[in-house]
């Protein structure tokens, strides 16, 4: 049962910014927030609905970046022609987030702000060197993913800030994303991409508190055993730390092998 709360539907971003505070929080797809409220983990006094602000759902491309409005749903991202043309790996990942309802309700911004560590997007966007744009009445901030995601369920977003958009630098890296997923969220997810500058980058997600980024000049520089030594997973219902370390190695090797072969 949800607790009581107020609900407002601002027409534009400026109105949102005037309303946000510690108790009044942004609300979009609700796929994370409403569950947390049902379980009593979060008890905000008010929700500010972002779904009716078209600007927050826009997906556009500039010379230097693909910019995705934070309010775009996973499904909208996956089906957008710009994303399909320029970031096919993101399409592939977005098509496999949650289930079909979560993809049609949940937003990319909500996913990032919740900073659930077992998130495909946290790892992939880190591999893409994406940045997020935060806005408040105090001004704008642009943060790299590593600066934004500070820990499990913990971001650098201030209570009065709104995540407005995510920017992926162009040209988007290509490569592969593979994951082991038995339940609703991945146990381990690994992105392996080659950047426009020719660098090879591997990002390990889900198994760690925050995505682990490793880069090298060539795929041969990616040391799977070294990555396994660096991750410090916790034992839980999804698997023991020992097993998670083991499959981290397996999936790093798989991702690299796929990326080496030139997957999307």
């Amino acid at each position, binding site marked *: *049962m*949800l*607790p*009581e*709360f*107020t*609900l*407002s*539907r*601002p*027409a534009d971003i400026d*109105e949102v910014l005037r*309303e946000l505070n510690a108790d009044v929080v942004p609300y979009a797809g*609700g*796929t994370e927030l*409403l*569950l947390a409220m*049902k379980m009593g983990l979060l008890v905000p006094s*008010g*929700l500010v*609905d972002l*779904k009716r602000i078209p600007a927050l759902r826009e997906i556009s491309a500039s010379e230097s970046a693909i910019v995705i409005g934070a309010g775009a749903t996973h*499904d909208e991202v996956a089906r957008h022609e710009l994303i399909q043309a320029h970031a096919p790996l993101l399409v592939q990942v977005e098509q496999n987030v*949650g*289930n*079909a*309802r*979560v993809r*049609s*309700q949940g937003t990319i911004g909500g996913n990032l702000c919740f900073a659930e560590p077992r998130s495909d997007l946290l790892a992939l966007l880190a591999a893409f060197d994406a940045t997020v744009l935060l806005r408040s009445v105090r001004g704008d901030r642009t943060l790299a993913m590593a600066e934004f995601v500070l820990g499990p369920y913990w971001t650098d977003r201030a209570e009065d800030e709104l995540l407005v958009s995510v920017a992926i630098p162009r040209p988007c890296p290509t490569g592969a994303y593979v994951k082991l997923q038995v339940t*609703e969220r991945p146990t381990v997810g690994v992105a392996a991409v080659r950047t426009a500058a020719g660098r090879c980058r591997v990002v390990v997600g889900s198994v760690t508190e925050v995505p682990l980024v490793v880069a090298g000049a060539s795929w041969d520089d990616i040391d799977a055993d070294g990555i396994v030594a660096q991750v410090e997973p916790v034992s839980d219902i999804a698997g023991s730390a020992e097993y998670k370390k083991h499959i981290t190695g397996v999936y790093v090797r798989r991702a690299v092998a796929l990326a080496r072969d030139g997957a999307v």
Partner: protein
Amino acid sequence: MSSATGSAAGSTSEIATTVNGAAYRGSVANRTTLAAYLRDELGLKGTKVSCELQVCGVCSVLVDGRPVSSCTYLAADIDGRTVETVEGLATGERMHELQRAFVRNFALQCGFCTPGFLMMSKALLERNPDPTEDEIREYLDGNICRCTGYQPIIAAVLEAAAELRGVGVD
């Protein structure tokens, strides 16, 4: 101007919506889920609730044609939107192709998950009128059926898709 909804107390919202083609207008508590609104306010009890975590798919309905878990969707959010539930599938006495295919294929037993499967299948066929078996599995993987073992559901969706495309089945 903020189009703030609800009373000064702020715990309710005014909504105007269309459910299965009928217009409704009224006040709902913000904490009311769409599932509760459909079942308790509108008496549309065909939509069921089970896991309450968006995992089982039992409560699936369509909002503006897109599938949502009505157990984790605010009734207030259907303001200005169109909702379709299992009660709206049939046209008068004529059942939807999916409904008939489910019956023919024994694609349900207890039937509790069925409204959700039907609505998800409708969403699938609207975006992909000719899905492969793998595409059906992928799209419906987020719906749980504990009775059938799923194979008859896959068969029913394939059959309904063929009928809707006018291919017909023998």
